[in-house]
């Protein structure tokens, strides 16, 4: 086979007028960016609200500036003893309203679960798992000894703030910081509000 005789992709593309190609290119690039924004706005506008307890820390991203990494109480989900799910496996966590209006994890499943009144299913990916161990002479762990604890990421673990503001949130006592997230019917989540002492400090408009 003579590879040199095969026409290149460019020879076909060149048949399209140059101006049309430039317009198509601009429409594609701008379209992708706008689609990203619209997708997230749809979650914020139509998603069910859940209130989550957090534990913030403040790193810095070279390309994206200051952001607060949020670890949630619902990031650790207790499951019955058994084969641990593989890292990266997509899962759904059932959230139910708990004390003080904060949602707590009520179960983990690999498909969209049937929900009870007030419950919301949030989609995530498995980040790891370990066994809940009770050490004699130490305080009891916040889980059932012997149960498997699965660490789940929901894609709402980063919250970007203006330069320098990340530190202020980081130094705030963990129990005072909460997040209100919007969760779509398919389980995708987006941060809607950041609360300190129950009062909004950052409110997210759809656009």
């Amino acid at each position, binding site marked *: 086979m003579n590879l040199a005789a095969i026409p290149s992709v460019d020879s076909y*593309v060149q048949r*399209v007028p140059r101006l049309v190609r430039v317009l198509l290119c601009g429409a*594609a690039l701008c379209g992708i960016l706008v689609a*990203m924004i619209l997708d997230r706005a749809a979650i914020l506008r139509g998603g069910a609200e859940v209130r989550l307890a957090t534990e913030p820390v403040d790193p810095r991203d070279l390309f994206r500036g200051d952001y607060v990494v949020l670890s949630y109480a619902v990031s650790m989900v207790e499951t019955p003893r058994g084969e641990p799910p593989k890292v990266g496996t997509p899962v759904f966590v059932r959230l139910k309203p708990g004390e003080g209006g904060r949602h707590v994890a009520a179960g983990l499943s690999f498909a969209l679960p049937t929900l009870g009144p007030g419950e919301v299913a949030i989609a995530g990916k498995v980040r790891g798992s370990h066994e809940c161990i009770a050490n004699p002479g130490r305080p009891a762990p916040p889980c059932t000894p012997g149960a498997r604890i699965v660490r789940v990421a929901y894609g*709402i673990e980063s919250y970007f703030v*203006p*330069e320098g503001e990340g530190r202020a949130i980081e130094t705030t006592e963990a129990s005072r910081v909460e997040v209100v997230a919007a969760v779509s019917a398919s389980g995708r989540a987006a941060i809607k509000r950041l609360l300190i002492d129950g009062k909004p400090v950052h409110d997210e408009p759809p656009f």
Partner: protein
Amino acid sequence: MLTSSYRKRLEADLPGWVAAGLVTPEAASAIRLRAQEQAGGVRLPAILGMLGGLLLASSVAAFVAANWALMPRPAKVAMILAAIAAALFTAYRLARNGPSLASDAAATCAALIFLAGVALVGQMYHLPADWAAGAITVGLGAFIVAVLMRSDGALVVAFAACLAWLLADLQESGVDFRASPVYLLLCAPAVIVALGRDSRIVHHAAVLAVGAWLALHASASFAESEWPGVLAYWLAITVVFIALGWLSIEGGRPALLAACLPWGLAGYVIVIMMQLLRILERSSSAPGHASVSVVVAGLAAVAALVALVVMARDRRFGSLLAAALALACLLPLVFWSGLGQGLPGRAAVGLLVLASSALMVAAGAAGGLRSVTLAGSAAFAGAVLILLWRTIGSLIDQSLFFLVGGALLLVTAGAMRRLLARTAAPEAAR
């Protein structure tokens, strides 16, 4: 397009050829004119334009990182979209007389601003820190620019995004280090486009992107017991790359495959050095085991060696190179035979590495290919240094090993000299 080093060499050689009567002054002038035409004109403005575009894209990236709250989000998004449109329009204007380096620079700038735009949207709207999805998005945008604007720079950005996706996907999986086949869906269209391009940077980026995917098929894990198989697999891949690179250089087409040669040679040096280091350590010289992918890669390497001998136009170079690579391919067999943990196995690996690299130097000299000579020399020098550092047995054993090895090489050199003198065609017959 001619490389600048070749043009300089041509400029230096032409007066000598004219003086020797090999080329007429008129022919020399015609050659100079042709070389100038193929050089692509003065590139300085385009190079400065490319660097300027890079700085502009960096400026947008820093602006994104500052997360400047004084400007409303829609204004920031509009600014990014306007910057993309301006860069594309500039590329359109500059390409009025056909594709040029300057129009390529502007189109590349559009791809880089799109990359910054993805980061900006992710930051402003707190999108999940999903590196794999981000890399796919950037890769898709850069690929669209590369195809529609015929931009080589954007194609390189697309390959870089492919590699970023590969690493992000491996990090995501956490436990299985085999590259996902999905990668090929992203990478294959870009490789097909790259086949029709003349840019050497694009060719190298394409080979690197495919090579990384192939290299990550060695094993699901990098546990100690897997390493002999992993190194055998990598060695087989480097053999295939070297053979493909050489056959492409000899055949002239496809030019993209010529970029396989330097990456294959670099891989060859690294892998045989790793083999030598591992055999000299008792803890890492165990046989281990091999997966199916190692067997498949091994068969591909054997096919590549046969092709090198049968298809190479320069038979002497092809045979020497094939012999050098075949000796290297015997290294994994020493590990798997179980001899590796004793003195005979260590001596065998040492000898195989030295013999393979010496043959590689000879092949490079025979074929007039500096990169092959350089790789052989680097491997030979590296092997001697490693053997002096880690020693095969006692220092006396080591001294004996070098004595035997040196004597063998001297005998081979003498025999080869006589053989070449006997087989060389008489001057008059050429």
